[in-house]
């Protein structure tokens, strides 16, 4: 059983042309895929849409069936304590000291908490060190 703190994110390659994002969003709608959080990273001619969705396994198959480049990526969700300045620093500092680079991150407003999704090269290990440092991580079931 996969670590409950490891979350599956879908990463989708999108050409940076008018209407391309709409086309991908249309596919999400067609398959009734509920997007909980997302982030769009872009270079000049392409973008990468990263999305947290309900039932990522099924969504992955559905999106792939439309010939779109999609990939599953393991990420982790770090809870940001409310009214507690420096909590983002604390998590980043722990990872930095453990020699782990954050490839990217983006904010997410959960029902009960603020949080930050981050992608690191070794999520299992990141979960370990963050937990050991007393930092609260989001469980898959909490999204």
């Amino acid at each position, binding site marked *: 059983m996969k670590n409950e703190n490891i979350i599956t994110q879908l990463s989708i390659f999108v050409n940076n042309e008018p209407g391309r994002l709409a086309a991908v969003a249309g596919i999400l709608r067609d398959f009734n895929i509920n997007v909980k959080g997302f982030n769009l*990273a872009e270079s000049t*001619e*392409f973008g990468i849409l990263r999305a947290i969705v309900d039932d990522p396994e099924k969504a992955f198959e559905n999106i792939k069936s439309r*010939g779109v480049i999609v*990939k599953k990526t393991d990420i982790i969700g770090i809870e940001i304590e409310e009214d507690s300045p420096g909590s983002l620093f604390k998590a980043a500092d722990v990872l930095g000291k453990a020699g782990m680079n954050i490839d990217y991150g983006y904010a997410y407003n959960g029902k009960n908490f603020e949080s930050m999704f981050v992608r690191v090269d070794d999520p299992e290990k990141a979960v370990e060190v963050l937990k050991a440092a007393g930092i609260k991580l989001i469980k898959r079931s909490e999204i």
Partner: protein
Amino acid sequence: MYWNANIECMAVDDLKKLQYRSFKNLINNLYSFNKFYHDRMKGAGVHPDDLRSLADVQKLPFMYKEDLRENYPTKLFNVPNTEIVRFHASSGTSGKPTVVGYTQNDLAYWTEALARSLTSIGIGSNDILQVSYGYGLFTGGLGLHYGAEKVGASVVPTSNGNTERQLELMQDLGVTAIACTPSYLMHMSYTAEKMGIDFRRDTCLKKAVLGAEPWTESMRAKIESAMGIKAYDIYGTSEQAGPMFSECEERNGIHIGADIMYVEIVDSDTGEILEDGERGEMVVTMLKKEALPLVRFRIKDITSLMKDECPCGRTSPRISRITGRADDMLIIRGINVFPSQIEYTLMRIPQIGDQYMIEVSREGALDNMKIQVEIKPEFFSDKVEDMVKLRAHIESELKKYLNLAVPVELKAPGALPRFEGKAKRVIDKRVM
């Protein structure tokens, strides 16, 4: 296996004598009966009597595509209308279309050339050949059709288009060989993948006869590994008749039927004849052509005459792979670039697919080139940094080979246009 061993394996000296005799007859005939050639030769100060050996051919003036255009549609025809049994017309991709005509004898030598070529590839009466070249004004479809019938192959005349139906027929009829443009075969391969068809598992396809557009060795490697087949290069233009001459099973150069076509390689700028092995512009004389004679025609294809003997036993001269057309050449910031060089480089990069587009534009006085490629899904990384690195890698490979910095754009699979006939991969937005 030879179709016509007498000619295909004739001693080289005898072939040259045969060519000289054909030349003599052709030039005597044209000088006496054809105003265009008569005037041209007079203008160049050459008389048929000046042709004392095959080497004297270079005294004759060149003929150009423009001559065909200026005499559109049939002013250069050398026979009365009653003798013409078929027309074809070029697509006009590089200007006004040209019309070509054929007598019964013209069709006969065309078909003969194809029968030799198909036999040399090992295609014969046991084969089922799908002709996916366009049928109609384009010479590919009907040309291959009659050539394949001549060797007794069973022809499936699908023409191009309706690719899914073509793939179904290919499976249902047990097609063993296909003739089409390389870009159409790639399109078929792409469509097959989407339909869940695996060429190795689901078809009997073994060979592909590919031509009508320049393609590269790396494209061949890509096609062969993707489909589990052997691909052969075939050459011929509508001015010559149509696709005619191909590689043999050695796949090292295209055998030219020496009794049908006489090839010279010249320097594009000076028109001087180059040594065997030197790359230059091909100049052709059609030795048997009746309806529309061609003498020293500047075909613009870039190739070289090969020096060595072919192990297949054919003595007919061979030309090396066509690397482009003299008028395909792009001059970008003073550097000559052939689209085939770009293709050669791209097809060796495993992270990208087999479709690409080249866009040329002008900013002020500067020519700019941009290349779009499709990334393969398995090489997609969701880190922008990785993708940018991949892009930089492609750019540096191009830089290495072209000696020119060309920006690359990464596209999703399926984003670039597919071609069913001749591929048009260069978009030239420059206003000349």
